[in-house]
């Protein structure tokens, strides 16, 4: 019974980790392609921010999958060595997930402020334009 549980959990861990890895790989490859495209075509600093935000979201989603697999692994972790490795990996993933969340929120706030500033600027310009008698 215990062996069966171990086999099932190991299979589930493999599947969940594969999903997480797939999310990270897809996100990284997409971001690399976009970085090259933006770098060659637009050459604008602000054009890089949405790509970095999306890559951050992909990484955060992949991390969620990997943390889920860590939780599953705790069901069958027989030795203290394995538990130690698991704790270290889970700590890194949790810390990175936390910091990624903060970075995403910060960059989103900056993008929103820039958009708001641009709208205000264009609004004041149009206001000047409408008040212009010519």
């Amino acid at each position, binding site marked *: 019974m215990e062996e069966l549980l171990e086999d099932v959990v190991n299979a589930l861990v493999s599947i969940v*980790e*594969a999903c997480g890895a797939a999310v990270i790989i897809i996100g990284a490859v997409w971001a*690399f392609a976009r970085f090259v495209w933006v770098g*060659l075509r637009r050459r604008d*600093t602000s054009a*890089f921010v949405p790509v970095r935000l999306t890559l951050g979201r992909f990484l955060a989603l992949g991390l969620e999958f990997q943390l889920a697999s860590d939780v599953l692994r705790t069901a069958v972790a027989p030795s203290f060595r394995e538990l130690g490795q698991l704790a270290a990996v889970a700590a890194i993933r949790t*810390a*990175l997930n936390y910091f990624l969340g903060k970075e995403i929120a910060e960059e989103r706030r900056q993008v929103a402020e820039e958009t708001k500033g641009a709208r205000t600027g264009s609004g004041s310009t149009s206001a000047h334009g409408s008040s212009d008698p010519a």
Partner: protein
Amino acid sequence: MTGVLLALPGLMAQLLSGAALLAGVLTLATTRKPTLALSVFLDLLTAAGLLRLVGDPSWQSIATAAVIVALRHLIGFGLRIGARNWTTSTQDAGRSGPRPGMVVDRLLRPAWRR
């Protein structure tokens, strides 16, 4: 299944490390902004570090991923502080004294060309 799960992320992590370097250099060449290029490089390097943790990671790959994450935040913090100091000193120089560019010009230009 497990073999593929162990081999593919490792291979992709190496490819992503190369891609990170390439994207960083390209960003630096096109935008001429080291901060942005470093951010792009470290973003993709983080993805590579996370892929190294898939499967049954060794202590070395765990330490590598931890160092990348720590380095990323340390460099980001340092760059933000540096940018803030630079902005402040530029504003101060604008109020009183010469521009930083003028000081560098004065230091680098030979005396006979002044």
